[in-house]
């Protein structure tokens, strides 16, 4: 047992703080974590205070009697700024975006009370990829969480997606000779095609199915229903 904001949380050996909290039904904001895959630790949204230090809950092993603080004013503010940095570094035009209302980045922005960018937009030039017959890649929205890479490697056993470059030039890449998604064996049926927390990996057909007001995060905020995608169905929690 450890304490998360005063609530007792049970855990099994090897669990991270975030895994244990997730299983116990407590929400710690996150983007790059997914219970089905290895932790990454890159988005830093899941930062929590432990023993006077701030650590990422997805990589920090749970320990008995640990006192973990997540829902503090300071951490909420830090998370808001991290979200604002993610918005500023990409090109996010929510109103016209295919996943608007179903997007985890946007849902967390709402949740954390984001009203403006705060940082000057970097307006990067990023390569798009429409070479695949069924999937489209819009890197303007990529947050470099590597969930697609992990899903492709760990579940699909295909290793289609990877991150390349360095620093602000970090970008999504595809394991094919010419570097295009269309030349890989990626398919619509892959788990990786249905894992992106934002609108970077998109189906070419069937977008904008729901009217505003009926979308995943329109009614139930992300801290209540958790990180989900429309195509896996939201999970209503109390």
């Amino acid at each position, binding site marked *: 047992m450890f304490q998360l904001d005063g609530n007792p949380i049970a855990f099994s050996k090897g669990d991270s703080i975030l895994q244990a909290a997730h299983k116990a039904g407590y929400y710690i904001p996150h983007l790059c974590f997914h219970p089905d895959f290895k932790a990454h630790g890159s988005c830093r949204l899941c930062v929590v205070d432990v023993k006077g230090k701030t650590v990422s809950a997805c990589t920090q092993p749970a320990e008995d009697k640990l006192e973990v603080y997540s829902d503090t004013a300071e951490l909420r503010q830090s998370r808001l700024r991290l979200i604002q940095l993610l918005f500023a570094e990409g090109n996010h035009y929510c109103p016209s975006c295919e996943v608007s209302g179903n997007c985890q980045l946007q849902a967390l922005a709402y949740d954390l009370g984001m009203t403006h960018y705060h940082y*000057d937009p970097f307006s990067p030039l990023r390569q798009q990829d429409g070479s695949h017959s069924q999937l489209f890649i819009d890197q303007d929205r990529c947050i470099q969480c590597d969930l697609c890479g992990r899903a492709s490697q760990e579940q699909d056993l295909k290793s289609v997606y990877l991150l390349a470059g360095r620093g602000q030039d970090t970008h999504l890449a595809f394991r094919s000779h010419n570097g295009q998604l269309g030349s890989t064996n990626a398919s619509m049926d892959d788990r990786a095609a249905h894992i992106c927390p934002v609108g970077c990996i998109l189906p070419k057909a069937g977008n904008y199915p729901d009217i505003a007001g009926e979308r995943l995060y329109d009614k139930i905020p992300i801290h209540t229903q958790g990180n989900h995608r429309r195509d896996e169905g939201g999970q209503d929690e109390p």
Partner: protein
Amino acid sequence: MVNPINDWLTAKSDFPSWSTDLAEQTLLRHYHNPFLPERVLQNLVILQQLFGHISLPMQEWLSRKSGVHIADLRALISFYLFLEEAKPCRYHLRFADNIIEQHAGVNELIEQVKEKLCGCDCKIETTSCIGLSDHPVSLLVNGFPVTRLTADNVNDFCQLIRRGAPLQDWPRSWFAVNNLIRHKGPLTAYPYQAGQGIAQAKSLSREQIIDLIGDAGLRGMGGAGFPTAFKWHWCEQQNEPIKYIACNADEGEPGTFKDRYYLSQQTDQMIEGMIIAALAVGAVRGFIYLRGEYLYLYQPIEKGLQRWREQGYLNADFDIELHLGAGAYICGEESAMIESLAGKRGIPTPKPPFPGEKGLFDKPTVVNNVETFVAATYILQQGSKAFKSVGTEKSPGSRLHSVSGDCQQPGLYELPQGTPVRELLALCDAKDTLCVQAGGPSGALYLPHQFDTPLDFENPGRGGSVMVFNRSRSLMDITRNFIQFFRHESCGFCTPCRAGTVAMCNLLERYEHQPTLKEQNKSDMIELAQLMQQTSHCGLGKTAGLPILNFLNLVEHHE
């Protein structure tokens, strides 16, 4: 590793055309088994140096040979600055643009060089500090350092290029690196006897070796000052037959060049220290991670390793492999270095697990700085008492400082731990000092009223470098240079550093140019620096905001 003399290690300006035979021969001369997947990064480094670039056919060939996907090779090339796909020019100039070189006039020199070399087959770029800030202005030409370029000799320099003089025929004086120690101390001047430390270690149990290091109070010289005995003990305790020793010779912190000295003048002490560490923890293999900027030291170090092999100290039980980096400061961070040694992009991995438990190839690994290994050899040879006879109680011993900037005598100074900043400034003959930066951009800024601060592990700025700035310098220029350095060197893994370093540069520019919004920009910068400190994944992001905090602190101090 059969023959240390290899074509790819010589300075040249004519690159052979691509030949699979030449490539294969070169790699085979280097490793018995060159096409293991974990060797791809080293292979790319060698191909780059040999052919001047890594073209598509080379990538295809290496991919076929190693079984590593070509997209992964491209991911490596796009991460490491010194790996390039584009066809090489005859001369590739990379000027160091650390603040020391900027103060020495690198920007003006670059303008002149660009003008004089207009139309020549050359490429002119800047790069982070190349470990020669005691020889400003310095640059790399096709990977080899040209030192002390000034307004007086820039004409001659450009003449060489205009004439198309082959790089290997340039007068040696252009490449002169002076490793003179201006102030000697125990580590740099004792009657070293090669192998005696090893003999001593062999007469002791593992535990006794570690106790001796612990009794000396040796702390890591790479910046963190972590107790070395503790690190070795932790690794020794791991129940695992395969363990590794890794020597961190990445020396990327701008303004730092003390390891350059040890790597070129006391190679044997470093190697002996690694062998001692291997005896202490039971390691089977060692690695030296040499920064790409120190390519010119590769051959001397490899020859040193060869000597120890011939003497039987390096053998089937424990041998050391030399690795080259390729222009990525982050690879000095120990977990990124371990990734890089395994042939991957240098992305720091989560801690825990720490390298002592799960390091290179997931095996327990001791990572220490070059100077730490040198000091370990000293302790085994001279005893722990001798080591701690100088220094302070919490920071025993002495260490080498890299001193550069506004002083009459830049260079290397070995001083007892705890020597006050003021004393060092007097020794190097610095006048009218505005401030000093200790430990590089990620270290600490000291103002005149703080010059009594002891340089030791109890105070920030522990990396072994001191950059001196006099009153003619602008703190804004210094700060801008530092935060641009971090933006350039962020590995891009985590949000606060990848995006935060860019946002910080933007905010500083706003601060500089929008006087009406100064207060707002100031509080935004402080908040961002704290955010990065609090939430970043590794030490780079955690310290990348410090120059801003120092700067604003000083501005306040002056107002």
